[in-house]
């Protein structure tokens, strides 16, 4: 092992490799911070350029994009209120309010530190216990994934700020949206109205861009038209000069959240087929359960999702490296790159290319250091966006809605979808219906149906499979508790109040 470690160091620590890591990290951060361009896109673009590189450089640049990208999604989530990637959807919930309060640098600083914490945490898990974790993750089959997602659905409860009914309305509307397209098991066309582009379903990116960005745009334009103030965001006094990174005291307060969220992210990342967005919602929900102030624009609300989504990077590498199974589209692209370079991830990789495996680990550490350095200087630059007069900023965002949603699949239908959901989002805001459960519904809807139906095909139609498999049962019981508990405590409060009066 020590020999491998030394070999890994010598492989990773070359000027060329560090250069490629830097390129990858910057590319990933930029792509992730622009809604519509995800780091998966950056990975695909980079693949042909890796054909001519040596093994370690090729992997270094891809790891840079993957890890740098996961951390970049928070930038637009905090500053513009539009998540740069689906994995940053939960970051908007506290990040944007913090920016509105004039604490944008602080919010971004926390996001970076949480990202790096989550990434390194998952890397340690990857290095120490990859094999056993992968074996456990394999046991998470379709029935368990269905139960996990049902558990995830219960988060809607904590995302519905004022009214449970409105939250559920938005959540189920999101699930309904995922039924558009070819059904995931029988490939039967549903609600496609003969439009071929709809056969692939409604992608989350245009919906997210539309629903998060358009309401603000419409509102601002309306205010300008009616001659009302546009609500400029100013940085709070003192925020400009102070360093953006959280203080030791703030870190201490968030430590528990960071550790729990990183663990959640690593665990969910290791399960093939789930991915980043779910993990950050679950982590956010855990943080909110502990600190009711989460949701109003506090550090913990940023720490939780950002630690979780970066922990997914190390988590997702677990099944990829140990078994050669990619957990999501990003790791699938990386698997492709490995194979083009004649490396087969799996048990043999550790035997035949042990040094290379350690070079991957070391590359991940270097990438996270680069993230830390780049963001430290970057934040000061990024927050300048807030100096732009709001009306100009909104015009830019409108342009971004169009270009960003088109860029997802190079398909004009996605622009129309973004605008439709933009208008829906505006009216949801007017009527006080939260938009985040809608996004959660879309994230979970596709997975829930697919796994439900596949689990039933495997069990030959027996519904008992969901309760006879212990892990599945556990998640379902947890979900029931999560849904029922708030209702009980509310009822108790009411009866107590009634008794007192």
């Amino acid at each position, binding site marked *: 092992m020590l020999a491998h470690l030394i070999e890994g160091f010598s492989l990773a620590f070359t000027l060329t490799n560090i250069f490629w890591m830097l*390129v990858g990290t910057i590319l990933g951060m930029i792509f992730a911070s622009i809604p519509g361009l995800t780091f998966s896109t950056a990975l695909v673009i980079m693949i042909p350029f890796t054909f001519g*590189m040596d093994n370690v450089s090729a992997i270094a640049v891809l790891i840079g994009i993957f890890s740098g990208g996961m951390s970049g999604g928070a930038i637009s989530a905090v500053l513009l209120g539009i998540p740069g990637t689906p994995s940053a959807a939960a970051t908007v919930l506290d990040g944007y309010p913090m920016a509105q309060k004039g604490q944008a640098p602080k919010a971004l600083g926390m996001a970076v530190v949480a990202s790096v914490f989550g990434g390194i945490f998952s890397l340690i898990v990857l290095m120490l216990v990859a094999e056993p974790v992968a074996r456990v993750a394999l046991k998470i089959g*379709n029935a368990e994934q269905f139960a996990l997602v049902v558990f995830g659905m219960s988060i809607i409860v904590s995302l519905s700020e004022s009214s449970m009914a409105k939250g559920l309305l938005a959540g189920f509307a999101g699930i309904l949206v995922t039924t558009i397209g070819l059904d995931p098991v029988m*490939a039967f066309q549903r609600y496609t109205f003969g439009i071929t582009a709809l056969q692939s379903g409604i992608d989350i990116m245009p919906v997210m861009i539309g629903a998060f960005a358009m309401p603000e745009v419409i509102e601002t334009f309306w205010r300008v038209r009616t001659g009302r103030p546009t609500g400029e965001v100013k940085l709070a006094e003192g925020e400009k000069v102070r360093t953006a990174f959280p203080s030791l005291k703030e870190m201490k307060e968030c430590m528990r959240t960071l550790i729990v969220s990183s663990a959640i992210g690593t665990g969910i990342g290791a399960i093939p087929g789930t991915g980043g967005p779910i993990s950050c919602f679950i982590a956010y929900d855990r943080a909110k359960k502990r600190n009711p102030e989460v949701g109003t624009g506090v550090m913990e609300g940023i720490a939780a999702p950002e630690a979780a989504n970066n922990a997914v990077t190390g988590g997702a590498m677990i099944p990829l490296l140990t*078994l*050669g199974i990619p957990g999501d589209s990003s790791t699938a692209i990386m698997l492709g790159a490995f194979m083009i370079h004649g490396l087969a991830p799996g048990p043999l990789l550790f035997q035949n290319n042990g040094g290379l495996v350690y070079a991957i680990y070391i590359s991940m550490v270097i990438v996270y250091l680069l993230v830390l350095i780049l963001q430290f200087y970057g934040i000061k630059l990024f927050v300048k966006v807030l100096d732009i*007069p709001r009306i*100009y900023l909104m015009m830019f965002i409108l*342009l971004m809605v169009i270009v960003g949603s088109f860029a997802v699949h190079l398909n004009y239908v996605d622009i129309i979808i973004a605008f439709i959901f933009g208008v829906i989002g505006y009216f949801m805001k007017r009527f006080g219906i939260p938009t985040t459960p809608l996004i959660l519904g879309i994230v979970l809807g596709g997975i829930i149906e697919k796994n439900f139906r596949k689990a039933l095909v*495997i069990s030959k139609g027996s519904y008992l499979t969901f309760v006879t498999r212990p892990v599945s049962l556990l998640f379902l019981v947890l979900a029931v508790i999560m849904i029922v508990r708030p209702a009980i405590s509310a009822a108790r409060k009411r009866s107590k109040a009634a008794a007192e009066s």
Partner: protein
Amino acid sequence: MKKLLSVVLVLALILGMTACGGSQTSTTAPAAPAAPAAPAAPAAPAAPAEPAAPAAPKTDFPQRSIDMTILFGAGGAADLVGRLLADKASAILGQPIVCNNRKGGGGAVGYQYVLGTDPDGYNICWNSTSINVVYHQGNMEQDYSAFKGVAMITKEASCLAIKAGDSRFSTLDEFVAYAKDHPGELSIGNSGIGSFNHLVAAALCDELGIEVNHVPLDANESTTALLGGQIDAMMNMALDVIQQVRGGEMTALVLIGGNGSEQLPGVKTMKQLGYNLDLTMWRGITVPAGTPQEVVDVLEDAFLQAAADPEFLSFCAENGVEVAPMGGDDFDALMASDDQLVADIMVKIGLKQ
């Protein structure tokens, strides 16, 4: 001053945005527009392209970059082989070939896109047997004849695999015997309803006279499900099985087509075992019907040359993909005969619409 600065900033952001939007596609030639984030990055590592003049050029095609539609997701078998091939072909054509994953609808989304473009050779499709399946499934109006074959490149065989160390069976005979004793009990994962592997699995069970539960998953999911013990066997492309067999996680039982694979020593094909079943999945380049013949010729030459590239050949050999280049006219005939074959199987398994 501050206002001016912010206007400049907005402009810069917009410029950056639009440039990024344009570079969503991936380019495979050095001359291609680089991603704005790393201006220095892409130029260096890409292979130097020496445009070799195609034989007897009657046309000045290609004058600009060519858009290649890949029907399935990035990182999969179709994507990998296609991208490598495009990289080689673009060096021969002297123009970049831009690969775009237009996935969805089992290929229908990508097919519709290509068929909606002008038949001028600038939009090509990395096609496969899925054209026959999608049509007969009723998810597409046009059939294979809407495309003109340019060059068939590869043939891939499917492989039936079980988890290594399964106590119930370790050979095909034992598997069949167990399945006959327990009809309908075994689950075989495939790559989705109507996928090539689904058709092959159904045809296999028909030929062997066994009754199983077909589980529609996808290439990665079936690997996960088999290793996790949710299903008893999987039908997957040899490329996806080889790594797991080498790693000692799976045992390959039988190949459904081709002449056996060097990467899977000792694994027989159905034909070698005396059964009447030999199905392989072809992949090749097609263009919309109506593309001028001289353009098709230029593309055909370039792709057939690319298919002979040593790096491409060694990648395919390493991963159990048989390179079987075939010219455009023979390819058209193959698509027609395969169409009948696929239709027959789909009638048998009740998927024909």
